């Protein structure tokens, strides 16, 4: 979490430079992508059979993880017993079982929280260590993993990332459906902030804020494009997210391989206009699809599950008509 003071120099630099030097990743805006598929599955509570729900979604989306090294990336940020900051342990445990069942050669759970250094303690408080069998053997603290450079990240000549993430064939963003007090919403793509190593960039990963939050979200999804998303919207967070908001039951899992399409769909479920989110504008047609007409909805319709998330004042005009 950063404050306005941190954003000032970034904003000032952004105003001066604009996006003049921004190349927009590997896919040019002119190269329009095809359509995308996103699955919306109802799940009223964490005690439902989430494994079956996920298997249903993966079947409909024709994802085949057999033989792949899979990294499950939950959203494990802080712990507050009075709200629901993190991806629920039931979702993480179910995803682990699903990808093992589908024949992944390796399934690792990895996260690099942005504020707290004792990742294992966070995992303990979020019940990951207690309820996911052999959690310690399956978990990598991405803040303290070995790292390797990736050439070219926004205007930086190189950026370091955990080797566990770079070696994964498929990264599954197990994000939480939340509002976000800087980006508007934090979903599959923003969740990749946890792939940036604290042992290089610190706590918080302030380098990303200085690059620009929206641009960093875009760049992370560009680098880690072999990805899939399962969004925990069973109970999301509204208001002053991603940490100090209030629980908001939405009763859904949202899944897909096209992360901008997944995030745009989640926004519509939350009653947020995805076209107002800068990172989705950057990603649209470069990394994926965000137009509703080009997203084939599997499972439930958006209309049948839409539930408006409360928005804090700076984002009130993001409300979807």
């Amino acid at each position: 979490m950063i404050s306005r003071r941190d954003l000032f120099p970034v904003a000032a630099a952004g105003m001066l430079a604009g996006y003049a030097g921004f190349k927009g990743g590997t896919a040019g805006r002119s190269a329009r992508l095809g359509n995308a598929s996103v699955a919306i599955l109802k799940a009223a509570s964490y005690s439902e059979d989430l494994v079956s729900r996920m298997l249903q979604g993966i079947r409909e989306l024709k994802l085949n993880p057999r033989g792949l090294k899979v990294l499950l990336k939950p959203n494990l940020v802080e712990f507050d017993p009075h709200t629901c900051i993190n991806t629920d342990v039931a979702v993480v445990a179910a995803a682990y079982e699903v990808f093992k069942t589908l024949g992944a050669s390796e399934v690792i759970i990895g996260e690099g929280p942005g504020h707290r250094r004792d990742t294992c303690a966070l995992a303990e408080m979020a019940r990951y260590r207690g309820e996911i069998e052999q959690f310690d053997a399956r978990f990598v603290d991405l803040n303290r993993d070995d790292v390797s450079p990736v050439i070219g990240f926004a205007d930086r000549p190189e950026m370091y990332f955990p080797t566990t993430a770079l070696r994964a064939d498929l990264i599954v963003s197990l994000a939480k459906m939340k509002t976000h007090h800087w980006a508007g919403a934090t979903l599959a793509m923003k969740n990749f902030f946890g792939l940036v190593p604290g042992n290089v960039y610190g706590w918080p990963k302030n380098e990303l804020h200085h690059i620009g939050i929206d641009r960093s979200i875009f760049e992370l999804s560009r680098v880690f494009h072999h990805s899939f998303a399962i969004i925990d919207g069973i109970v999301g967070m509204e208001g002053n997210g991603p940490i100090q908001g209030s629980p908001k039951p939405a009763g859904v899992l949202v899944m897909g391989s096209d992360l901008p399409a997944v995030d745009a769909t989640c926004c519509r479920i939350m009653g947020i206009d995805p076209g107002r989110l800068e990172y989705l504008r950057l990603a649209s047609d470069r990394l994926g699809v965000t137009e509703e007409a080009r997203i084939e909805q599997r499972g439930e319709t958006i209309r049948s599950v839409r539930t408006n998330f409360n928005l804090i004042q700076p984002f009130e005009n993001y409300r979807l008509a």
Partner: protein
Amino acid sequence: MGDSYLDARLHALRRTQNPDGGWPYFAGKQSWLEPTVYAALALHGEPAADRAWKLLQSWQTRSGAFRPAADVQMESWGTALCITLAVARGEFGDPFERGVEWLLKTEGEDSNLLTRAASAVGLFKPDRNPRYHGWPWKPGTSSWVEPTAHALVALKLASAKRQDRDVTGRIRLGQAELLDLRASDGGWNYGNRTVWGVDLPSYPETTALALIGLQASGVKDVLDAARKIGIERVSPLARAWLAIALRLYGVATPAPTAPPTPDLMLTALEALGCANYRYFKTGGEA
């Protein structure tokens, strides 16, 4: 704290040192500056610590900063830790001098000229005073509690050798920054008091680090925030830093008994809490 508790940790550190002389965060991984400095302080006086210092010196860049790891081409906040280690070892040569110079010229972007000027003419109202100068995790970013606390320890220790106005002035501005970042509950988190006007809570580990950085600052109530944290109820990392901080202030802490974990940085900090915490001692109590 029992000898067996300390011995188990020192033994774990001795057998996990990498062939290059450094320590990884977890056995079998690449060496990193941070666990290497803490392990070298814990094993001070042993040949293993000498090998670590030799490795760390090879990571110093032309600017005077140290890299966080051999292959990470970046100037790092860990330079402060290397100064602290150099002082513990009595190494006051060129690596020490250049490291101190780098610390003196490094500051968070939130106190740079552009921000100060914009604030002065009323273009925006910063959440913290831009006249104060803390330290960032890496140059080009904002200052935060942990790197600021470590830089203060390093410069205070270095001031025994370098009693010039640059050092004392920077310590004063760094302490002011740390106090300015204090949360409304009296402790410290990573470095933001509020977001959108909502107070943020403090963390035990960063409160302990702030306490260490503010030794001898003359601020009377900094110990209160750490005292009211239940050391037995916090995470292992927070417990390790709190043990070091409280013992530096002469406060006894409960004797721990848990076996070492695979986390080698934590192992080194737990060992430091037993004995060599004095290498973070920068002066009288606050």
